[in-house]
């Protein structure tokens, strides 16, 4: 897909900031699948995932002015919009729903080792499935479910410092897995 590119990232950003709809169409054609993959790894309902994708692209169009290239690549910026929108969506599903998630995760912690790779993961989650299970849960809760370190510490009954170091280790492991 990248090989099809007729825009350099800088050109693309400039044209998007000039409200060029052709550039936006190009952006969608090249990145909607990748972002939809992320959304689907957080939001399980297909209809909701479609709505989130739509909102994400509309927000990219509206907020393109606030994109700052010095802080990261355009895709990273879009990925964070997609992740945040997805997390907001699953969190807004109601407190009861998140309570269910919490109790589920407590169970997962107890029998964590046995759940390894039984669910067919999509997108980045597939990469995640290669992590050690004790790390995977932490990354899953932190990245894909949007829990704060404090929340994870409480839910899993692990000291906050341990949560932080384990997540950092997991993330750095993730990097080596992705980059190879």
């Amino acid at each position, binding site marked *: 897909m990248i090989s099809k590119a007729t825009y350099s990232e800088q050109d693309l950003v400039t044209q998007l900031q000039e409200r060029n709809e052709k550039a936006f169409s190009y952006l969608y054609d090249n990145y909607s699948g990748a972002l939809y993959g992320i959304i689907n790894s957080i939001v399980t309902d297909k209809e909701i995932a479609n709505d989130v994708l739509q909102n994400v692209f509309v927000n990219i169009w509206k907020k393109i002015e606030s994109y700052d290239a010095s802080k990261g690549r355009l895709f990273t910026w879009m990925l964070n919009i997609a992740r945040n929108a997805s997390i907001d969506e699953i969190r807004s599903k109601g407190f009861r729903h998140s309570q269910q998630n919490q109790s589920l995760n407590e169970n997962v912690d107890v029998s964590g080792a046995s759940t390894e790779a039984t669910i067919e993961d999509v997108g980045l989650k597939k990469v995640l499935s290669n992590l050690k299970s004790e790390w995977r849960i932490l990354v899953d809760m932190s*990245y894909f479910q949007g829990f704060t370190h404090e929340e994870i510490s409480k839910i899993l009954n692990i000291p906050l410092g341990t949560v932080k170091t384990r997540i950092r280790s997991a*993330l750095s492991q993730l990097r080596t897995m992705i*980059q190879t």
Partner: protein
Amino acid sequence: MNVQEYISSGNIESYVLGLASEEERKEFENMCSQYPEVLNARNAFELALEKSAIENAITPATDIKNKILLEISSTAKVIPLSEAPVKSINWFKYAAAACVVLLAGSLYWNISLMNKNQTLQNDYQSSVAKLSEMEKDFEILQQNPNVKMASMKGLETSPQAFATVYWDTTSHDVYLLMNNLPKPASDKQYQIWALLDGKPIDVGLIDNEYFIKQNRLLVKAKNVQNAQGFAITLEKKGGNPTPQGTMIVLGNL
């Protein structure tokens, strides 16, 4: 700080994946500006992440793109307009308000003109009617050579009273012109008499309505075959077969 240690301790991933706290973000941005190794490592991870995400892409349904393009094209059109319309909306509001005021004023003006017009038309019609009655009455007097006239002067009880009788000697019609007769009391009525050889002949009553409306120049009385003079007396309402009341005016032909 050991830069390599900083790079390998999950800071880059935490920042790029949006998991870093505000404090950690600021620290990382500082590190990037100070150490090109950190920036390079960040770029490398971002590229790898992007590549991985594209490899794991899921193609969305085709109609979603159209929905998005429709939604952004509506905002795309709104955005360039959003500068000017603030003023033009206000202008429009004022213009609309002014139009409403003008319309209300115009309506009020039209209605009052219409009412005035109606009143004028009514007045005009009644004036025309009154004038045509008077013209008819006047024709009787002016164009008929056979009309005899008798001025009836006020008597002792009513020296100011004055009336005129016109008698058509061919048709024998009697017309009365009330130059100055006071309005009678509601239970009284003026009665007109023709005088022949000293005898009064009843030629009719003057309707009291005349003194209210006064839209006739002349009052037509009954025919009389012959007369030497005329008189008006004030009688009880409905009149009398022979004069009973006070005589007001008297005159001879």
